[in-house]
């Protein structure tokens, strides 16, 4: 039987734990992230002949190198390359939640969005064009209400479906920023081993931001001199 690896991520308080429990039936293996004091939860879900190994990542607002939680979440996605990443988004607080979504797209994660708390969003009088959102982001979006287990079967379907396809994220930034990303990306591609392991687009954005971890990596690879002209 086929086994796929699925990571759950989302801002704090979006109902991530509930979705984890709904998917795994509450049976979880609890341990620690290697070398860290942060809890790691892992469970299993079998759907239409596919076994999903589900990993609960820490709740985070962004993916900088600033806190342990964010570093754990991001290095898991970067290093382990899970087959599917489920980004749980609070439909009643879309703007803030999509900030993490955009960073996951930069990472070229194979995303499925669970648009959770749809009932609360509806109660507030929000109208969300789910199909439009999915098209603009280039990833499947499944409305869910984790508290009453609505949308769980659809979510599982979307995960299995996504695992068969590749990534085709669409989001692009301002023209001059995209140019920078491309120029940095071209320099990075001289180091094949590096870009085989990490998405060049993501590395380029992190270099632009001056991210501590990535800058160290670039220094180790001896690319810092070649980048000097671009990063100033």
């Amino acid at each position: 039987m086929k086994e796929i690896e699925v990571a759950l991520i989302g801002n704090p308080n979006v109902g991530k734990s509930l979705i984890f429990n709904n998917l795994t039936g509450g049976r979880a293996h609890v341990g620690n992230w290697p070398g860290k004091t942060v809890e790691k939860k892992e469970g299993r879900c079998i759907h239409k002949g596919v076994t999903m190994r589900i990993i609960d990542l820490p709740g985070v607002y962004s993916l900088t190198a600033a806190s342990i939680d964010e570093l754990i979440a991001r290095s898991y996605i970067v290093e382990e390359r899970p087959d599917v990443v489920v980004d749980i988004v609070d439909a009643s607080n879309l703007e803030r939640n999509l900030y993490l979504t955009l960073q996951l797209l930069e990472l070229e994660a194979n995303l499925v969005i669970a648009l959770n708390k749809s009932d609360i969003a509806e109660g507030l009088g929000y109208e969300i064009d789910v199909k439009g959102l999915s098209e603009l982001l280039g990833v499947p979006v499944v409305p869910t209400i984790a508290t009453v287990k609505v949308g769980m079967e659809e979510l599982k379907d979307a995960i299995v479906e996504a695992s068969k396809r590749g990534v085709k994220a669409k989001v692009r930034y301002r023209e001059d920023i995209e140019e920078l990303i491309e120029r940095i990306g071209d320099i990075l591609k001289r180091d094949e081993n590096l870009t085989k392991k990490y998405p060049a687009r993501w590395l380029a954005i992190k270099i632009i931001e001056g991210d501590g971890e990535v800058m160290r990596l670039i220094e180790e690879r001896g690319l810092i001199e070649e980048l000097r002209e671009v990063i100033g």
Partner: protein
Amino acid sequence: MSVREVLGEEPEVAMAEERYRVIGEILSKVFRGARPLTPSDLLDKAFLNRGLGIPIFLALWWALFRFTFDVSAPLSDLIDIIFSRLGEFASSLIGNEWWSAFVSDAICGGLGGVLVFIPPIFFLFLGLALLEDSGYLARAAFVVDKILRPFGLQGRSFIPLLLGFGCNIPGIMATRTIPSERDRILTICVNPLITCSARLPVYVLIAGAVLGAYAPMAVFTMYLLSIVLALLMALIFKALIPYFRRGRRAPFILELPDYARPTLRSALTHMYERGILFLKKAGTIIFLGIIVVWLLSSHPWGAPLDQSYIATLGRWLEPIFRPLGFDWRGAVALFFGFIAKEIVVGTFAVFFGLGEEAEIEEVQRSIVELGVFTPLTGFAFMAFTLLYIPCLATIGIIYRETNSVKWTLFTVIYGLILAYLIALLIVVIGGLMGLG
């Protein structure tokens, strides 16, 4: 085109703005609806207002301190009286002179000297817990972030510093919420400069004794000096120590929870958890410290104080403190103050043969009569007390939280040097101005 030309001086912030611009564009196409204004939003309009935010913050802070000191004062007095009576009662029951003095002066006096600090500390933590549970403390951190930034600190440094006014131990422990390691260590390093509640009795004692009508002003000056020096030292460390300059500042992202009515149960739990840390320290280190002071000052048994072991120690220390104008008594009080500031007042009381539970007025009278301090050296003594390491337990917690002998020693040593320099400065400048 380089990164700087495209995105300016802060590319990380510019990228964040760009992401939000893209999000805005997406939402304009697929999202309809306006968030209804909740009571929380309305409160935030006032509390986070550019003009009103800081005055409201200062008013609430002031209210918190009034609450702490006014409510706890009668309870502290009550504890003082109970232990003083208990001491008298115990000594009247015991025939043996040594044991009688030991039980009344050392044990009852020692316990009483420690327990009087429990009401203010617990009430401060209760007040903070109420502010925290109501959701305001997160806003306060937000409001002061702008003020703290230029000093190399940030909004999250604020709660640890605020807690430091109660006790530096929970203050230092609260730095765990600061995600950036550099900001966290810097906040830990300057936290001991925040004048904890244990230092207040020393100010009250000395100021009341030698500064007369200027006493309240002098005590207030200590609080001001505490804040100014904590910020100034943060600025200096940031400028001089390469470790604090390396890397970028972490952006300050803080989720503002909805305002809520605080529950008594949760506030009491918070108060208990933080207060108990102080109690543990008090129950062991301070209590033992006071007993040691009593033993050293009353032995050889029967000898007058100026021939006791403690006087010998004091004379040995005196040359170090002579430039500051402190005599052997001041030197010994500061020496034991290293264990805990709570011991300083008790040490003076023991010196004048008044017992630990002596009324503060009696101790003050003796300080004046024996000429221990002039107004100027008294003020310098207060500043010294403010600036050197608060207590042994604080050193322990700094080590535990930084996990570094280097940072622990650094904090202890710079505190001692700063204390000496500022006290010397006060004495020298005051002397030149003809005070003293």
